[in-house]
């Protein structure tokens, strides 16, 4: 198993490099000269030439990638075209907000998904099972940005119960753990949680149903264990897979929260990406996507490692 852990960790390195390369290429596939991503459009010809030399844009692509990589590793993601500030400055505060939102949504989705999926898997074919399956399908089919709008209409416009915009009173973007801020988190987190809820429900239902059909459960029943005791055995067997699915979902939410953040003006990476798209601020776009993708790669690695550690039955080459 130890060998697998080492192998898996080493395998993450080329993946991370390749992901970096795809992010590097984003600026290259953008229409127009990549230099337009660095200098303002009204720059003089001399300035253009100088920047081209300074940034190594006159060198072949692989060399450029190497130079870019060196900078990125040192934490230099370039400067925003719109604000002139280093990309990392805006990004670092946004990441915290997105992480808060994604973790909250994952927790809600995971708890609901486990309850629904567990019940559905245990009582297969019952009314409860049907309800759970329907909820799960609705959860993965709903355009969540639209669900966000509907929730705003109901809870902000009609009932006036919860705020619809921003992460804190007065549109502040600094997060704090008090009720003032928490109530801003409710709607976006619930909106975002429907996707992991649907997926976790489906997965847990499948796992639980499969475990319930195994012989050891029959044996436990024959031994005269109570329902509760059997349930604990099932949980123990289902947990590693369910956790793995959840871990990956957290990563998907980090990358996928852009639409929900736009609906709720949540000051995270999604909103940053959104404004970068509007202003065609390619350095911000590239930096944000690179950081989110790297987070996803790292998370994938962690999930695999933890899952292997938790469930030694999984044999891997």
């Amino acid at each position, binding site marked *: 198993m130890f060998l697998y852990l080492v192998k898996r960790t080493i395998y993450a390195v*080329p*993946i*991370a490099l*390749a*992901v970096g390369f*795809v*992010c590097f290429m*984003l*600026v290259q*596939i*953008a*229409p127009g000269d990549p230099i337009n991503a660095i200098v303002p459009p009204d720059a003089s010809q001399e300035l253009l030439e100088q920047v081209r030399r300074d940034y190594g844009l006159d060198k072949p692509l692989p060399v450029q990638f190497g130079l870019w990589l060196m900078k990125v590793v040192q934490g230099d993601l370039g400067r925003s075209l719109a604000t002139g500030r280093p990309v990392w400055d805006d990004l670092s505060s946004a990441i915290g907000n997105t992480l808060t939102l994604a973790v909250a949504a994952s927790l809600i989705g995971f708890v609901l998904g486990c309850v629904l999926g567990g019940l559905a898997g245990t009582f297969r074919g019952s009314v409860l099972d049907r309800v759970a399956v329907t909820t799960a*399908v*609705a959860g*993965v*089919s*709903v*355009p969540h*940005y*639209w*669900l966000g*709008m*509907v929730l*705003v*209409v109901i809870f902000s*416009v*009609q009932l006036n119960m919860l705020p619809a915009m921003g992460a804190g009173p007065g549109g502040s973007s600094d997060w704090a753990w008090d009720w003032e801020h928490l109530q801003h988190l409710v709607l976006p987190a619930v909106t975002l949680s429907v996707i992991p809820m649907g997926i976790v429900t489906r997965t847990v239902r499948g796992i639980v149903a499969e475990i319930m059909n195994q012989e050891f459960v029959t044996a436990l029943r024959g031994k005269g264990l109570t329902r509760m005791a059997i349930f604990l055995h099932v949980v123990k067997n289902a947990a590693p897979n369910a956790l793995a699915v959840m871990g990956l979902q957290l*990563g*998907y939410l*980090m*990358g*996928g929260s*852009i*639409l929900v953040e*736009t*609906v709720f003006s949540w000051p995270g990476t999604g909103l940053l*990406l*959104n404004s*970068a*798209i*509007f202003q*065609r601020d*390619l350095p911000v*776009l*590239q930096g944000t*996507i690179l950081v*989110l*993708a790297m987070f*996803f*790669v790292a998370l*994938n690695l962690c999930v695999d490692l933890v899952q292997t550690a938790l469930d030694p039955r999984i044999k891997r080459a």
Partner: protein
Amino acid sequence: MSTTTAAAAELAVQAKEAALRSEGYWAGVWKRLRRDPVTIVCASILLIMLLVIVFAPFVAPHDPYQGSMIRRLRPIGTDNHLLGTDELGRDMLTRLIYGGRLSWFMGIVPVFLAFLIGTTLGVLAGFAGGRVNMLIMRVTDVFYAFPSVLLAVAISGALGAGIVNAILALTLVFVPQIIRVAESVTTGVRNLDFVEAARASGASGFTIVRVHVLGNVLGPIFVYATSLISVCMILASGLSFLGLGTRPPEPEWGLMLNTLRTAIYVQPWVAVLPGACIFVTSICFNLVSDGLRQAMDVKG
């Protein structure tokens, strides 16, 4: 009258003959599908929607681009405007009908393209094995390292707004997913006895793939691809919602949601209509795909 009875009698005879013959795989699938009310209902809804959007010019009551400054944001149930009007005074029902054209187009075309490309590469990887497999699957791994929403936003964000760019981005999102499925089913079929038998009797690699492999792998890949249509539709509308993808004044459900976003304080129920259309379409595609999976007995 007599012709219809004759036709009915003919049909009855045919049905009896069909029942006497041993039924084929597809007949079985069709029989199972017919007994699944959820799939039938969803498929019917989709069929009706498809007909309505194809014949939009004959069905829609108004012109989708013609607005009116004095009739902006009317509520649902207004005279002459059944579902109200949008922020530029255009008829909502008309725009929803026309909007379906682009939304459906952008939900299906990327999946179709990804199905073609992904199946080719995946079957190649699975059947050839060795270095070819290694090369294709490692590149696939890289694209798997991006959450799909992020990848779609990244590519179409870099390429800029536009329908073609959005379709390109979405195709690239789904190709790796289809490659993985295609590769795994092909690897499963490759080592079965009948492939071995075909090889022993001297069939070329191409013939084996065409005759023996494709017939066994296309079904599962197709079912998987149908399950992606719902995701693709949500993603495509999401791109338009972000201002990538479709551009105004073109009607498209995601873009309509975006332009109506500020209207939720004035006419909330009109503003959320386009999203309801996306939801209904996407849930129907999902349920039909689930039904197909069960009827075709595809595992996974």
